[in-house]
């Protein structure tokens, strides 16, 4: 990519007005997106993203600049911009760069380039056909096929130099069911840190049927009731509850500013003892995994909550300096266009010992949110909300009928104490998480859990 001697000159230039630390992040990525609609390939885009970001610290102050001009001249200019942001009388020298090659647990088997376009198109058509064949109510199927290879190199003034290559595969399927004036959507978006072997391991027919089945079920469902009652949240994407309600508030971005409800809660009980939560970037080939983070540190498995007690935050370099704790390898960014910050990887609630049957039979009147939709949280207050993609009414300890249009709202701090039962059917699901440092691949996950009471916004009164 770029010669070590040039990198050292750039890092030195960035330090030249007394900065404490300088870092170069170089990226050259290729990606390809294909979309199917109306049973036709309607879009095909390939592209090349190439640029570099330079970051310096003055104490706890971070300065960031990025450019597409990756010539030595262009990078020196960007280094000059960041160096001039402040002036200090220190004169640090860049430590000699030593390249670290990490042994990656994420093996790539089949490069995308080894598969013909026709095979990729055929795969997408199989999903579409299965989805449309499921029901006459299916009026549209939208499928997005995505592949990306991100080549990066990170070097800093402390002598770190680390390259990495990340290969991503994902397919996003959305089936629309239509009846009279009503439309409902069922979606799935499986993805992995893998090459084309990921698509070979997917059953396209099953994937197409799953999204169609959910759309039709919700189309024919009645509106969900409103009010406060127990909610059982299904596994896999149900983990979005933890991601939104707690995960974001455990990132140093929120913690370091005291803008998190958990900022001063380390080693204290913040959740029901049935909760253990983990953020793990080392799981082989998972969507949210990496070999190194975007600051060049080896990725880790971080226990966030152990039996209800807060054990760790998710920490990047700058956030760690601010709160006086070492990095957990959580510095991540979408691309060279973003300065890194603490982010989630594969975040999940660990297994418990309850059964789903026991959970359902313990509820007199409530909601079974089998599949969650998306959500968001305001880290400052911990207020969250998310939608239910596939829901059922529970009456008299039994699932009675499907319901749609429900939204769950509440506060992260409160809900952790209201989770009273956790089962053992842990599963992860893939998503894109958007925050300060851009959109990055993450997994959410959990076994099925029971929340004793939560506000459900539906369209009907209880």
């Amino acid at each position, binding site marked *: 990519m770029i010669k070590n001697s040039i990198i050292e000159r750039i890092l030195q230039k960035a330090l030249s007005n007394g900065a404490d630390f300088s870092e170069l992040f170089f990226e050259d990525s290729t990606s390809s997106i294909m979309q199917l*609609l109306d049973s036709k390939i309607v879009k095909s*885009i390939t592209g090349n993203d*190439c640029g570099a970001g330079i970051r310096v610290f003055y104490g706890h102050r971070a300065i960031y600049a990025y450019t597409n001009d990756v010539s030595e001249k262009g990078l020196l200019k960007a280094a000059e911009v960041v160096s001039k942001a402040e002036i200090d009388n220190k004169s640090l020298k860049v430590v000699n760069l030593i390249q670290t090659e990490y042994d990656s647990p994420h093996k790539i088997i089949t490069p995308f380039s080894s598969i013909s376009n026709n095979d990729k198109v055929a795969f997408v058509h199989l999903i579409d056909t299965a989805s449309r064949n499921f029901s006459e109510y299916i009026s549209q199927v939208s499928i997005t096929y995505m592949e990306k290879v991100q080549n990066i190199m990170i070097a800093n003034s402390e002598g770190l130099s680390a390259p990495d290559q990340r290969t991503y595969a994902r397919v996003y399927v959305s089936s629309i069911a239509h009846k009279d004036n009503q439309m409902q959507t069922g979606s799935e978006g499986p993805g992995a840190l893998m090459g084309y072997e990921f698509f070979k391991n997917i059953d396209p027919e099953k994937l197409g049927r799953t999204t169609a089945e959910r759309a039709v079920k919700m189309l024919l469902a009645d509106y969900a009731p409103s009010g406060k009652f127990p909610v059982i949240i299904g596994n896999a994407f149900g983990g979005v509850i933890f991601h939104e309600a707690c995960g974001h508030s455990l990132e140093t971005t929120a913690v370091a500013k005291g803008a998190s409800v958990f900022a001063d809660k380390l080693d204290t009980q913040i959740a029901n003892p049935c909760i253990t939560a983990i953020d793990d970037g080392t799981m082989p080939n998972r969507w949210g995994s990496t070999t190194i983070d975007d600051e060049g540190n080896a990725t880790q498995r971080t226990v966030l909550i152990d039996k209800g007690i807060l054990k760790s935050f998710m920490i990047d370099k700058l956030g760690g300096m601010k709160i006086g704790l070492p990095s957990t390898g959580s510095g991540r960014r979408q691309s060279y266009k973003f300065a890194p910050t603490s982010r989630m990887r594969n975040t999940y609630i660990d297994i418990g010992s309850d059964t789903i049957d026991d959970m359902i039979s313990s509820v007199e009147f409530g909601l079974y949110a089998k599949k969650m939709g998306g959500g968001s949280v305001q880290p*400052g207050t911990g207020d969250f909300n998310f939608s239910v993609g596939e829901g059922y009414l529970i009456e008299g300890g039994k699932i009675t009928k499907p319901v749609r*249009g429900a*939204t769950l709202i509440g506060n992260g701090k409160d809900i952790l104490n209201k989770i009273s039962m956790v089962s053992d059917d842990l599963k992860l699901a893939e998503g894109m998480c958007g925050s300060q440092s851009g959109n990055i691949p993450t997994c959410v996950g959990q076994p099925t859990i029971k929340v004793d009471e939560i506000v459900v916004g539906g*369209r009907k009164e209880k």
Partner: protein
Amino acid sequence: MFEKEFQNIHDLAKIHDIIDYDVYLSKSKSFSVKIFRQDIDAYNYSDSIGLGIRVIHDGSTGYSYTEKLDNESLNTALLSAKNNARTVDYKETVVLKNYPSVNENLDIYNDELEKIPVENKIKKAKEIEKIALDSDKRIINVPHALVGDNESLFKIANSNGLDKEYATNACYGLAFCLAKDDNETKSGSSETMSRDFDDIDPIKISNEAVLKALELIGAREIDSGNYPVLFNNEMSATLLSTFWSIFSAKNVQEGQSLLRGQLGQNIAHPIVSIIDDALFSAGYNTRPFDDEGYPSQKTALISSGKLQSYLHNTMTALKDGTTSTGNASRSFKTSINISPSNLFIKPGLTSKNNLYSMFPKCVEIVQLSGMHSGCNTISGDFSMGAQGFYCENGQRSYPIHNFTVSGNFLQLLTRIVGLADDLKFKLSATGSPSILVENLSISG
């Protein structure tokens, strides 16, 4: 600018026998500084370029993009766009013309802006935080106190002689603060965007953010039920920016909009008019032409409750037998789509205060959360977390929180019974006055 690179593309296209294509380039520079506890918390500078190529081959369209502008990269991009066109089996008539220009002087670039020294921007951001923190002891934190600016150049050329460009710039200031009293935390935010740095007034920005957070302190819960609901101007604009895609002709044609077949029908209360105006002076998305190079215009989408037009680019217009509304949009990385320019609900003549007294009681909403998860833009259904006020006897009675507001956007349009005169634009270039909706479901 970039004449050499564009000429290279034209020359390469000739060599590869590529007849129909267009080229879209965007170059942008941005700067922002964020202050926390009177120190620089983030300082970002960027200077970047991207170029997208669209090739039409045998009636199909393929795209590619590159961030490197050397000859070899441009050659690769051209060839992969052609190759992608071969993969696409959807055929579509693409019109590539040399469109005329609009005559108006839009005043969307201010030369003075780039001369503002960085120190002045840092000073303003510091003031924003300080004023907010000093204003009330319950303001415990200002997580975002930000000042920034950006400038962009857009250049479009096609194989039929079109070759035009424009530059635009703007600066902004923003405050987001947290207020705490006992065990209750509330937030408030405020932002200003302008092409004149002097318009960024730290006092106004801070005071507004502080007021918004403090007025929600002491919030109570509300009983579930159906209520008349008053959305303040910002939240009404937020709703419009969430659901604008129902107006996209592309969504209509693809069967993803509730407005399919509704042209000429009454779809909103007769007091409601919705307008998209790319020539609107001082608008955030004001521009001389859209991302196909098509000249900008003002388009009435809903006039007195009646659906008059969808938002079109030249391709959707051709299919509907009409003309483009100048709403083609793309980035160098994406395919051509449709998006609004400056989209707004036309304000009414009465003050917001008068809306409170139209019903004996109502719920006023001043904050919404969960737009991307609680709103289905295809079905129009929404269910969002909200905060606001319970109102009685023509005024705010007390703040309320921890409830959701739900309904359907199309139904909401038919139930708007009051429009205030306080039109305000969000940074999304979507604007609205405060609106009063006669009946929506609230659950607490």
